[in-house]
């Protein structure tokens, strides 16, 4: 035990020193992350960024996204001492009471209005305390009613009836009814980013025959619409508060929902506090008296804050932090919530006029040139698993062999580049964008070395501050761009990232960052959206995976591992602690968003 403590102290110091050295080097609050974790200062709409240079972007639906190291690959084999550990003592009867402070990776939203939130992982984690979603995914990975009492489509999935749960009131006393649902969804429809996600919705109105029901009509059959109600679009805010905050900006940061906790106070980059909602509709939740979320951008500092008692709970993707928690599993109550999580990769702008990346040979040459296992060992201490496509192993569409090169083949890469150069004489140059984070810069330097060895004449690395990073992506101002994204439970939650309908011109804010315009991909996405057949959907998702491998639209890195770790007396982190109201069993772990949990289920075992 003494040895363990000594080791932890030594690591803590090393971690601290490294963290602060990076702060000093970067001399900016935006540059605090050290080893490939993400966090940061909030940026623009649709995104938040990481202090560490890894970036987290907002996802308007259930998925959350994060720009991050392009590589950060992972070993396909896991060393014996780094076996994932879920260390939660057996959970007895929940105890009511107590408070908890959680260190989160970023202050990720502003304002706290569902249609405008900049929602990455931390944002979802925080706002779930105040807002409930209309639906929640179950362990069966299908959406089930939660705040709504029923969500029913018509036969061809073009009309969805969403019925509000009886007797529920918002924290300000406003009734939750069909009009509240209509107000919230209508705001999404006209919002900058979430509007893109539900572009196909043609009308949202209260059922004249039933004031508790909202009727949503969509342009084309949309069998997977329910998934959108499990995420950002499903968060229900008080219409009274929304109307008041339309004219008073300061109210936008004081959310009013129906959730298990009532908003108390928020200071950007400082804290978000909420207290127990004693009238919560879904009793016996919540168990805690209060929760507080404190953004600590640097993962090593976050872990240190946990070890020194500043916070009681953290989440992290950092390889060093995860390794330390695994090595000292007995000291923490921890759980790796990684299922359906995101992939770290490099986005390519594939339709920019005059860019060599419009040629599939150049894109695939870059893919062949990458040595992700080496990078993963260097950056993530081998914690992550090497990615071969957009879908992580738990997601529908994952393939053991997608056709994407898993190992470096520099000869093949050089051959493809030579072929391209023979047809396109002149210097071949590429710009690679990364954040100001030191770890991401290391990744970028690996990439530069690989690409130049493959035959690219010059790769310039552009370090962009976090605040500007997401805007560059939205504007489409890049060639190669480090990123992290594509978690989620259904292929449809990726629709707006890849469909040509959200691929706008460079200079317009668009969620299809790489401006992919591929009729085959569009067809597959549309087909999936209309289908409720699991077998067919699986086939479609796998075809999408293979298409990405064939076209090399993105350069895959690793599947991100998330750990949630806290004091040994914390219970209720697992998604299985939340029973769905429709009796379908427990809710899905993290609601399809890796690294998150349901705050209402947490309790403290002080016995």
């Amino acid at each position: 035990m003494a040895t363990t403590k000594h080791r932890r102290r030594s690591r803590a110091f090393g971690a601290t020193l490294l963290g602060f050295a990076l702060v000093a080097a970067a001399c900016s609050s935006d540059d605090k992350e050290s080893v490939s974790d993400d966090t940061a200062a909030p940026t623009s709409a649709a995104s938040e960024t990481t202090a560490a240079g890894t970036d987290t972007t907002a996802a308007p639906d259930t998925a959350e996204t994060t720009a991050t190291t392009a590589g950060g690959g992972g070993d396909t084999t896991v060393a014996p001492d780094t076996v994932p550990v879920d260390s939660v003592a057996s959970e007895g009867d929940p105890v009511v009471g107590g408070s908890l402070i959680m260190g989160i990776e970023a202050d990720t939203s502003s304002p706290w209005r569902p249609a405008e939130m900049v929602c990455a992982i931390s944002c979802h984690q925080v706002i779930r305390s105040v807002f409930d979603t209309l639906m929640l995914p179950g362990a069966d990975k299908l959406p089930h009613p939660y705040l709504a009492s029923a969500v029913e489509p018509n036969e061809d999935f073009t009309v969805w009836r969403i019925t509000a749960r009886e007797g529920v009131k918002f924290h300000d006393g406003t009734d939750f009814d069909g009009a509240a649902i209509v107000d919230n969804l209508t705001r999404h429809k006209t919002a900058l980013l979430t509007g893109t996600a539900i572009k196909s919705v043609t009308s949202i109105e209260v059922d004249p025959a039933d004031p508790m029901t909202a009727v949503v009509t969509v342009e084309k059959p949309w069998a997977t619409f329910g998934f959108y109600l499990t995420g950002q679009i499903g968060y229900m805010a008080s219409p009274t508060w929304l109307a008041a905050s339309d004219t008073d900006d300061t109210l936008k940061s004081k959310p009013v929902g129906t959730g298990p906790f009532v908003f108390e106070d928020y200071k950007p980059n400082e804290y978000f506090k909420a207290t127990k909602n004693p009238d919560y509709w879904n009793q016996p939740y919540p168990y805690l008296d209060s929760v507080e979320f404190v953004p600590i951008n640097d993962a090593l500092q976050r872990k240190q804050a946990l070890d020194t008692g500043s916070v009681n709970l953290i989440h992290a993707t950092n390889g060093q932090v995860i390794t330390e928690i695994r090595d000292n599993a007995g000291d923490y109550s921890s759980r790796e919530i990684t299922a359906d999580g995101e992939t770290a990769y490099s986005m390519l702008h594939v339709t920019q006029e005059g860019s060599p990346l419009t040629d599939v040979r150049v894109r695939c040459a870059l893919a062949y040139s990458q040595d992700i296992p080496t990078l993963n060992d260097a950056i993530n201490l081998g914690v992550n698993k090497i990615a071969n496509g957009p879908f992580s192993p738990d997601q529908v569409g994952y393939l053991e062999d997608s056709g994407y090169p898993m190992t470096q083949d520099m000869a093949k890469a050089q051959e493809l580049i030579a072929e391209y150069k023979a047809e396109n004489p002149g210097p071949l140059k590429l710009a690679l964008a990364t954040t100001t984070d030191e770890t991401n810069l290391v990744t970028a330097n690996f990439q530069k070395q690989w690409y130049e060895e493959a035959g690219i004449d010059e790769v310039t690395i552009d370090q962009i501050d976090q605040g500007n990073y997401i805007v560059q992506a939205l504007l489409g101002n890049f060639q190669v761009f480090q990123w992290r994204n594509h978690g989620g439970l259904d292929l449809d939650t990726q629709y707006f990232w890849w469909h040509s309908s959200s691929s706008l011109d460079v200079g317009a804010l668009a969620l299809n960052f790489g401006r992919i315009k591929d009729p085959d991909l569009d067809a597959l996405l549309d087909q999936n959206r209309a289908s409720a057949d699991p077998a067919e959907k699986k086939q479609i998702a796998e075809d999408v995976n293979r298409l990405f491998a064939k076209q090399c639209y993105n350069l895959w890195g690793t599947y991100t591992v998330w750990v949630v770790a806290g004091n040994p007396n914390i219970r209720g982190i697992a998604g299985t602690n939340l029973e769905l109201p429709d009796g379908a069993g427990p809710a899905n772990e993290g609601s399809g968003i890796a690294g998150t949990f349901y705050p209402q289920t947490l309790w403290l075992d002080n016995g």
Partner: protein
Amino acid sequence: MRYIGQKFIQLLIVLFAVTFTVSLALSALPNSKERILAAKSVNPANVEAANAVLDSLHLRDSQIKQYGYFMKDLVTGDWGVTFQGNQSIKTSIWDGLQISLRLMVYAQVIALLLAIPIAIISAYRNGGFFDRTATTTSFGMLSLPSYILAPLFILLFSVRWGWFTSRSENTSLFDDPWQHFKDYFMPTLVLALPLAATYMRLLRADLIATLQGDFITTARAKGLSTSRILLGHALRPSTFSLVTAAALNTGTLVGGSLVVETAFGLNGLGFKTVVGIFGNEFRLVQITVLVLAMIYVFVNFFVDIAYGWIDPRIRAARALT
């Protein structure tokens, strides 16, 4: 009176130069308008909506006009809210200023309390064991930047001994004095130690020079005690450099304690300024810089006054001009 009038005019010139330069610099940030539009949920491609938002913020006007609107808003107190977080800018700056002022005051007080006695003893025992030890220690303190001291303190006080948490919660002194002490102990010490070393070096050097003056020899010949000579005669004329350095550091500490604020999770003015720059919070940054510039100018104004107290010859010279 005339002197104060001159200083006031200087103050206005400095404030204008600083705020106008900052305004120009902020407008030169890449994608500044796009970032604001994104924060306001408006797509730049929607020209009509984009222009409406930019017009409401006067961002399509000339720089001169924009500066005019800034001054108008400043005077009328209509400072607006931040784009990120929708916080009242007044509240945000006030919150940050309180933290930074506390850090500055605590650090200055501790630095001076450490530096002055050590410098006096060192100067009096110039070349002795105490002086050599103090000099070596001060060089050590000067060589340790805050990004080394901060983790070192966290290691010792938080990780090893568990006396303090690694993050400060900014508890009010009046709500919980003990917690307030625990919140500010480490950050204050990290700031104060290098300052104390600087002050000690400056004061020691000036004292050594002063102690060689004729009036000190006279005082000794008159049989005055050592403490009376040191404290009553030598100290005051030796504090020019110390007062100047302390004044300059006052402004630096209020706006430039970014590393310490970041290390201990204190959302001070330095931290807010940097986050504001990256978040394109132009109004927050403009006003913060104005506040910092005012602190610099006022502190230096009072230091100028203090020079007259330290050395009556300066007061006499001013009276002649």
